């Protein structure tokens, strides 16, 4: 009864049972991990959204959005207020169930799956307003994230014979967590309660925590809002590092046009619940409709 039931999420990640995902984070496994990731994941289009529609009561927030995100890309999703970006995001990550349309991740239909199942597929999100677990330390926040921890079973946490295993995995996780903190240069905050962090530090922590789940693709919702320029630089550097070294795919929802135009190689523009245009930043800049939509939206 108290044993953790193997949910559908486990079936999708069979290799994780024997080789915990966190081992990839070890420094000595550096090169092989990247190679393995490259082998396992065919280059292509991890995320495909087709004809996505979401109605709330009588209001249509997303009206047939179709787009896809390329492997190891940094894709930006922009649009004026009320364009349906956040709702699209919530439909992809399972927070809302779409009224119509499909969401595919790695070729599998994930439409309407529950948020934790989608996260377990390697599609992990952050939140516009950083949702830290205030009464947990930064290190605890990070150690929470990795999936399928042995100690998430009550019996394994408790029984003397099995507890050793849990402790062993915990110390591995702790090591990974420390390294991730160092990567984000917030290791000096390890023992601090998340509730005491500044706004920018919270954003870093949230990204670090999401990274600890060993994702394949990250959806960042306004990751740079309210972050000072120095930290913003740091965050962007980390994102570029991860993309280049880890082949991680990023989809950024952002208000700041300039930031998207400077950093993303592919930009999707939403307007009134539809995809207005997509392409390289140069192409987008050349599109008069986009400019107009933005001007119209701002008024």
């Amino acid at each position, binding site marked *: *009864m*108290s044993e*953790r*039931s193997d*949910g559908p*999420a486990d079936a999708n990640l069979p290799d994780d049972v024997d080789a915990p995902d966190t081992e990839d*984070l070890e*420094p*000595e496994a*550096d090169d092989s991990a990247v190679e393995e990731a490259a082998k396992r994941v065919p280059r292509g289009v991890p995320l495909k959204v087709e004809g996505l529609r979401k109605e709330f009561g009588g209001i249509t927030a997303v009206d047939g959005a179709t787009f896809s995100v390329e492997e190891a890309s940094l894709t930006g999703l922009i649009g004026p207020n009320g364009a349906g970006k956040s709702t699209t995001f919530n439909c992809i990550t399972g*927070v809302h169930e779409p009224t119509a349309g499909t969401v595919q991740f790695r070729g599998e239909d994930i439409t309407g799956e*529950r*948020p*934790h*199942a989608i*996260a*377990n597929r390697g599609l*992990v*999100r952050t*939140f516009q307003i950083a*949702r*830290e*677990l205030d*009464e*947990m*330390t930064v*290190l*605890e926040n990070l*150690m*929470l*994230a990795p999936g399928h*921890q*042995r100690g*998430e*079973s*009550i019996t394994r*946490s*408790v029984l003397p014979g099995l*507890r050793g295993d*849990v*402790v062993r995995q*915990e*110390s591995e996780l*702790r*090591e990974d967590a*420390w*390294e*991730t903190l*160092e*990567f984000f*240069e917030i*290791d000096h905050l*390890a*023992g601090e309660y998340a509730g005491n962090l500044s706004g920018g530090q919270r954003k870093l922590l949230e990204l670090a*925590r999401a990274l600890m*789940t060993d994702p394949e693709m990250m959806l960042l919702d306004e990751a740079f809002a309210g972050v000072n320029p120095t930290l913003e630089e740091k965050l962007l550097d980390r994102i570029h*590092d*991860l993309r280049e*070294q*880890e082949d991680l795919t990023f989809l950024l929802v952002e208000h700041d046009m300039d930031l998207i135009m400077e950093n993303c190689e592919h930009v999707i523009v939403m307007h009134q619940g539809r995809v207005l245009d997509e392409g390289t930043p140069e192409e987008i800049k050349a599109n008069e409709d986009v400019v107009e939509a933005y001007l119209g939206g701002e008024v």
Partner: protein
Amino acid sequence: MSAVDDARGVLERVFAPDAVKVFAMFAGIWLLFYWFGNQLGYTDPFILALVRRVTFLSAVYALAVLALNIQWGYAGLFNIGVAGFMAVGAYGTAMLSGSPGGSPPGLGLPLPLGVLGGVLAATVIGLVAALPALRLKADYLAIVTVAISEIIRITFNSPAFANVTGGASGFDNLPTNPVRTLLLTEPGSIISDPTPLGQPIFSLATEYGIQRLTVVNTVYTVGTLVVLLGVYLLLERIGRSPFGRVLKAIREDEVATRSLGKDTQNFKVRAFGLGCGLMGLAGILWYAMGPRASIVPVNFRPELTFYIFIALIIGGSGSNTGSILGGALFASLLFEAPPRIAAIIGDRFDVAADPANLVEALAPVVEGDLMPLAGFLLNNIDTLRFIGMGVLLILLVQRRPEGLLGARKETASAVSLADDTRPGTAPERPTAAADGGGDGDE
């Protein structure tokens, strides 16, 4: 000034370990009730019985509070149906292990099986009844659980099932107290010959003039304390594990936890089931056997749930050690102490007045005669005690919602998370600089 600070520092250091806190508290409770007994002119065996009684009540309260703590303190599940799940445990064990010849008949299974069955029944009922409700907002869950506990109580109380449950007069056919089985050749008779194990214990007790019944109850109380310790250690382990960490995260922010791939519903269900099972265990040890054995539906009114809640809030929700402190302090200071204090005051000041109502008690105050009022208040100490509990609860919410130990943040991890656990600080890896860590990270 600094001497005071020093003394305070020393005290804080001495009381830092949880074991010291708990032992100091129990020692304090025992001393207090020893003094009560002394003041009331009890003989030593009677004082022992009083101290034993308080200890037992403290232990069973602490057990129930620990069970609630895993649900509310850890996972933030606001269950106010505790009494119902305790009832299921107690009734379950009694029905399984009561003698088949008694009335109402039991199944006559061995007691360990009965206890296991009772705990399982509480778990299963808890899960079945509350499973769909765990999705609901905290205040809805509260209303649903209190309604469930009332449904359970009314069902046990109903004449419709009286041939199975005993109805309003309760399940009279209780299983044999295991301590009696252990110490006596005929468990049913307290004057029967002791077993080889019971022989030395009883003869030692006789030397001090302690009655056999007190001996049996004392041994049972010690057993309950052992169970309490076991459950405490179990829950500490769970708290300091990835499972406990996820529960803590759910309490903080369920949406964020879900976004990290945790099936929060699954964790909540397991925490709820575990808590209900332990509530069942508390119900069994408290009501199905031992010194306070009595399975009557009235025992399981929602008031019992509220007592356990008050105890948890006193101790500090979220802390297992706090749960034990809260349970014991509630049972001793709020529940058992007031009547003794009233008796002592009544004795000391010769309060003999017994006015029939508050008006008769208050009227003489105008003339400067406080005796009738004193007599009235002392006679109504039980009622005053409940008013006091209500006021205390309000003050706790207003002034100290974290209770005694709830503000203390306990690490949710199976390993230490102190700064010196950082790989860079370990002697064998002296050069793991920040950027090096970054490169090697993934």
